[in-house]
């Protein structure tokens, strides 16, 4: 491995090679071969440290969740207590909000995947460079407009005096309220999550050779069977990845329920916001936040348990 170097090599090889050799040499000293089994951890260490910043923050949050708010001084109580968790457990409102978030996140995943799959499929499979570019541009541009402005656009489109109602009236359907309901919030989440899902699905589909589909087709399988038995199973890493991202992000979303829900379709993040910012009860807000983290992590764990941690390209090739 190091035999390209040598006394006479010094003149013959370009500088870049020497730099590379020096680096290899340094790497060999700093990270000797016997450490090789831990190379994965070495590469992962910076990411673990970066997320640790967040974990440190969560430790602070956990600490404050164990104190109740004293309303005569607006300071947290001195003693430790589980009172905040009890408040959440005893409240029918919070249970309802938690259930709504979970259900909303589930529906968002389903509808987002239904839209994202054909989008990624055509993006990857189309022969037209123009189509591909147009689809990519349509995917990327909405990122540049934040959630709030996009939600505001929907208020105008779906409003009582909005474009959709204008169109409905033209075809003789009476104007109706399309906004401020649970389905509107889910719709808002779906259009927000769609680009993320496509970006995670497309690489997985790219990895499936076109010939595999052709072969299955030539063996007599119709397109639906090819899709179900060949493409979807092979796209599994992408599907799981998209599911994880969409489910966790929509579970913790704040802006869509706030703007498109008309105030009565709160998700947990909205309840947390209220406690932190409106009633100044950081303890209760922290307890809710930790609960949400626990629910989200359990969800992630359940998805891995159901589909195996081997998906998402974990642990090398299967």
């Amino acid at each position, binding site marked *: 491995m190091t035999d390209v170097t040598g006394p006479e090599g010094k003149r013959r090889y370009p500088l870049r090679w020497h730099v590379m050799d020096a680096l290899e040499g340094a790497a060999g000293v700093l990270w000797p071969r016997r450490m090789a089994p831990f190379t994965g951890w070495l590469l992962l260490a910076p990411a673990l440290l970066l997320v640790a910043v967040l974990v440190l923050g969560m430790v602070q949050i956990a600490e404050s969740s164990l104190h109740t708010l004293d309303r005569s*001084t607006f300071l947290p109580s001195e003693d430790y207590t589980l009172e905040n968790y009890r408040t959440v457990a005893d409240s029918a409102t919070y249970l*309802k909000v938690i259930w709504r978030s979970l259900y909303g996140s589930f529906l968002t995943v389903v509808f987002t995947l239904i839209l994202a799959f054909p989008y990624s499929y055509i993006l990857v499979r189309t022969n037209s460079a123009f189509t591909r570019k147009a689809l990519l541009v349509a995917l990327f541009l909405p990122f540049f407009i934040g959630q709030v402005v996009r939600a505001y656009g929907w208020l105008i489109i779906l409003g009582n005096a909005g474009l959709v109602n204008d169109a409905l009236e033209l075809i003789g359907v009476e104007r109706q309220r399309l*906004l401020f309901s649970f389905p509107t919030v889910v719709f808002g989440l779906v259009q927000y999550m769609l680009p993320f899902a496509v970006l995670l699905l497309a690489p997985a589909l790219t990895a499936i050779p076109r010939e595999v589909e052709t072969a299955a087709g030539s063996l007599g399988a119709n397109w639906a069977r090819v899709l179900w038995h060949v493409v979807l199973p092979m796209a599994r890493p992408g599907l799981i990845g998209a599911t994880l991202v969409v489910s966790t992000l929509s579970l913790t979303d704040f802006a869509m329920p706030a703007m498109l829900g008309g105030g009565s379709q709160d998700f947990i993040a909205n309840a947390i916001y209220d406690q932190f910012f*409106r*009633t100044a009860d950081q303890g209760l807000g922290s307890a809710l936040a930790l609960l949400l983290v626990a629910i989200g992590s359990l969800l992630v764990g359940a998805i891995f348990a159901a589909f195996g941690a081997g998906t998402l390209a974990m642990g090398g090739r299967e």
Partner: protein
Amino acid sequence: MTNLKGSVSRRTILRAGAMTGGAAMLGTLPATRLFAQEPEKPSEIIVRAWGGEWVEALKKGVSDPFTEMTGIAVRHDLTEDNEIQPKVWAAVAQNRIPPIHINWDTTTNATKSALRGVTEDLSDLSNLAETTDLAKPVGLEGYPIVNTYGYVYVLAYRPEAFPDGPPTSWKDLLDPKFKGRIALYNDGIGFHFPAQVAGGGSLEGIPDDMGPCWDFVEQMKAQEPLLGEDPDFTAWFQNDEIDAACTISTNALAAKRNGVPIEWTVPVEGCKFDTDGLWIPKGLPENELYWAKQYINFAITAQAQQTWLDGLGLPGVVPGLTPPEGLAGDPSYPTEPEDFEHLIRISSAVQVENESEWFSKFKEIMQG
């Protein structure tokens, strides 16, 4: 938002006015002087303010003249009052210099900060002598906060939807034709007290017997009201989503000035009246604290109040202000004792103690 042309001419006028105002203020300075000599001026001070026409009004009435007089630039931090609170509290708890010099805040929120002990005492401001009772926070010792004006949570409505004239009672909103066409703040703020009366209760029942309030909120829930914040209300009125809302008159006024068809009224049950104020967080260097105090001292002069509150359309805390055009006698602009008859004012102490309970009860009904 004001158009550019208007603000230029307005500014020119102000410049002239600032000379006299400046002289007046400097004349009062020796009385409040905390140091033998004026302490060193910071290059700027940071004032938290609400965005849109709120900050425009403050800038015109207080910040710009203050800069003219002292040479200290004023930077506005537009973080929401609710959202700056944990930032300031954390800074004080961690012994850091707070992110702002002055907080323009609701009296209720400010009271929480005062109870927590993160506010500086402002009792030594010389111009407090010229102010009305409204400037003094109720139920707190000294002046941890100086109230600067009052405002009313009016019943704003779309005139088209009320062809027979303005609604006279909050109960009018229970008409089935307004189903899904009413908006309230999403914590119910401003609505609890009129609801207590409309539900057949009395104001003495606050906070111990709020049953009538919750009955009325339940009735209102059946109307499927929309819940939101100030910008939502304006957007909803504009896009024909709602016919009526319980909102601060300033926002209704701003919407009206920008062409949204909207009027407002105070129904027989009354409307909530409350105040906003200015306060200074603890932990500032002494010279910056001094100049922050001078800013507040200036904000309660008649000159500053007149311009600032013209922009907001609200009654101030010094006597003798001229009401802005069209607002003299308006129910959202109370000045005389009889104007207050239909307005409900509950002490901040009672409010902060019970607010989160009211809030969660309101949520419980609305999210149900």
